[in-house]
């Protein structure tokens, strides 16, 4: 639908990319249909019943040259349009609006310069937006089909992407690079708002995230965990996912492996903090090391306090 209704022009790249599509696919269809029908015609016309004796022809240098040169010219035309539609994606204008995108298994979060953090990408219309792409664990793919942009989010590398959204609305944002269990659930939305509306939303820092309202410390903890994606790996109902369930976790004993030795610990505030800041130090028995990433710098001590409050309520 995106391609088919390319007139929607949701971003500044749509025209260039779709033009390349049209030219490449147009030429391809002409050749595909032309060659297929030529082939079928030959099979019909020179069927052995009609033409019992073949005429031996070994080749033709002239034809070989023609069908080398013409396709070469055509593919160079295709190359040109491919390049022309892509070149503007390389460099963002200097005055772009900056947003940091953090990908992790299996969600994206978006951080704005004023400290706002969201799990939906809010952007102003008709303004260049530059995204800094950061991965906390494995490679993810940042893909907004309607905008025609895609860029891998590679751990250890700072990458970026940019666009100018030209249409108000909600557009899908996928993870396009396979990243493990819930890769197909690692999607969210881009919400494009007219600049005025966006400004109003942006300056309103009373609401940390506009998805859920802040009520009590426990609700707050739940909201933080939801936005940052803990529930991709943990449940609250006793079922195991990638990590242990949080049901009844607080105050209970767990067996953990620390540097190769098993030991038993009681889950308290300190343990939870350590599990979040340095999850691979004590690994819960029966689970794999290295899956949960340290959240240092992403969750403040205050955030963790709120999370702990919430975990206490899960009996």
């Amino acid at each position, binding site marked *: 639908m995106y391609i088919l209704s390319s007139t929607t022009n949701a971003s500044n790249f749509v025209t260039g990319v779709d033009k390349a599509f049209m030219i*490449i696919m147009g030429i391809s*269809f002409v050749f595909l249909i032309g060659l297929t029908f030529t082939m079928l015609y030959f099979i019909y016309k020179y069927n052995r019943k009609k033409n019992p004796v073949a005429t031996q022809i*070994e*080749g*033709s240098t002239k034809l070989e040259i023609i069908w080398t040169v013409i396709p070469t010219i055509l593919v160079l035309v295709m*190359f040109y349009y491919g390049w022309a539609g892509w070149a503007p994606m390389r460099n963002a204008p200097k005055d772009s609006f900056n947003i940091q995108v953090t990908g992790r298994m299996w969600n994206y979060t978006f951080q704005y310069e004023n400290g706002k953090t969201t799990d939906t990408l809010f952007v102003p219309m008709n303004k260049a937006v530059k995204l800094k792409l950061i991965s906390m664990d494995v490679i993810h793919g940042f893909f907004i089909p309607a905008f025609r942009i895609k860029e891998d989010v590679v751990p250890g590398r700072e990458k970026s992407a940019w666009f100018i959204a030209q249409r108000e609305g909600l557009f899908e944002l996928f993870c396009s690079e*396979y990243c493990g269990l819930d890769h197909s659930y690692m999607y969210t939305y881009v919400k494009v708002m007219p600049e005025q509306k966006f400004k109003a939303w942006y300056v309103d820092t009373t609401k940390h995230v506009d998805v859920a309202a802040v009520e009590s410390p426990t609700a707050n903890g739940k909201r933080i965990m939801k936005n940052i994606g803990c529930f991709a790996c943990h449940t609250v109902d006793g079922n195991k996912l990638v990590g242990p369930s949080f049901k009844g976790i607080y105050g209970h004993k767990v067996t953990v492996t620390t540097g190769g030795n098993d030991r038993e610990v009681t889950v308290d505030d300190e343990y939870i903090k350590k599990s979040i800041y340095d999850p691979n130090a004590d690994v819960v028995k029966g689970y794999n090391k290295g899956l949960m990433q340290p959240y240092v710098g992403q969750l403040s001590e205050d955030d963790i306090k709120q999370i702990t409050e919430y975990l206490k309520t899960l009996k």
Partner: protein
Amino acid sequence: MQTAAQIPHDVSYLDYKGKYKGIFAWIFSTDHKRIALLYMFSMMTLFLVGVALGLAMKLELIAPGRTIMGPQSYNAVFTVHGVIMIFMIVIPGLPAVFGNFMLPIMIGAKDVAFPKLNLLSWYIYVLGALLVIASVLFGNGIPDTGWTFYAPYSFKTGTNLLPAIFGAFVLGFSSILTGLNFIVTIHRMRAPGMTWFKMPLFPWSLYGTAWIQLLATPVVGITLVLVSLERIFGIGVFDPTLGGDPVLYQHLFWIYSHPAVYVMILPAMGAISEIIPTFSQKHIFGYKAIIASTLAIAFVGYFVWGHHMFTSGMSGTAQYTFSILTFIVAIPSAIKVFNWISTMHKGSINPDIPFLWAVTFIFVFMIGGFSGLVLGALATNVYVHDTAFVVAHFHFIVFGGVGFAFFGAIHYWYPKMFGRMYDKAWAKMGWAFFTVGFLTLYSPMFYLGMMGMPRRYYDYLPEFHAANILSSLGSWVMAFGLVIVIINLFRSAKNGPIAPMDPWHGKTLEWTVPSPPPVENFDEIPVYGEKDGPYNY
């Protein structure tokens, strides 16, 4: 030309009784023809497993949400499916089966240059396959990285990845040794008078392929060793948390795996270049142009790997250089298509079963190739990379290309290999179902990719539903066709009517020996005279 047609009743390779009995007469045989069949049966078994996994995925995707399995299983299924299909089916592919069987006969030799090495290659192949199977059956969890084993996920996953990687590594040696064997065979063992430019096109394609196998496979071997060392000892080449670079992994992986695509497709093209002239009873059009394009593909194919990485982060210059080279490598493939179609012009065409497969090959190969142009251009690649579009593209090329050519080749050489003919009515029906199913299965994936559906997706948004239903239905039709084709071939090997020496009136040397060929192929090595040629009808 002196042919070996007058050989008295020598024992056929199928009936020959050597010092071993039963199955050992096969697995200890160094006869290139028996080894070819060993490969064929082992590959057929693995192929059916791969197909079953493919069908399971399609069933899962028939509706959003969970249908028959959870996400962990789905990820394991596409990984094992990909590993089997790529490393065990299409890379050994036509060379292992038809190359082994036909190459010596087509160039007038009694066997390949190193028959024992040839058998060893098959042992290595089996060992590699067993290792991969072990990774599925034992250990804590089936590998779930995708067949590409991308870092750093391949270090993070808790699944039993090492045996699978080691299996792929071992399979590489089988490929290298087969390539080496073929290169020496072609250089040293052509019949007297068969100059390079009198050699048929299938051996030519094997020659181009063999060089890629020999030169490119070690790169992936070393890469897989590095991954293993990193997983075991944490040496820090690819893992960013240890100071490594995951994009380096992708470069090393694709430096092999792109040329590997040509390892798959070149022999397929070679088989088509034999079938088309035989069924048109006409000299192949542009013999030298086809050879030149084979060599050009083998050479330029080394320099296009970056087109798999346009979104991973390369310099702009690298990106458009890879893009332009990708377009250049498309030209020789186009030249081949033009020459095949011109061969039909003014021919005397017998649209028999092998020819039907060959023509459908050309059709699906063109679709695969044209979609490759979309992937070669930068702007469009960025959009469809890692979407269902790519899945459609490579199934059209590797499954459409190699698969249709393989079935074309088996129906073409079957009477020679088994001395019997299959049932043509069933064969035609199998082909029809297979073709219709194939197109229904994969065409919707182009559309899904254009809509923006990423690949390796266990679940999808409702807007992708309709096309996925169609695709899943197609998979059943195709599977039905496949069953017909395989059963027909199996039954006919015992019960089919006895095939003559030269059922299709071919001109290459394999049609001058009895069907099935005797153990040593030729009583007397044939001699190519001035006027002889593989396509002189």
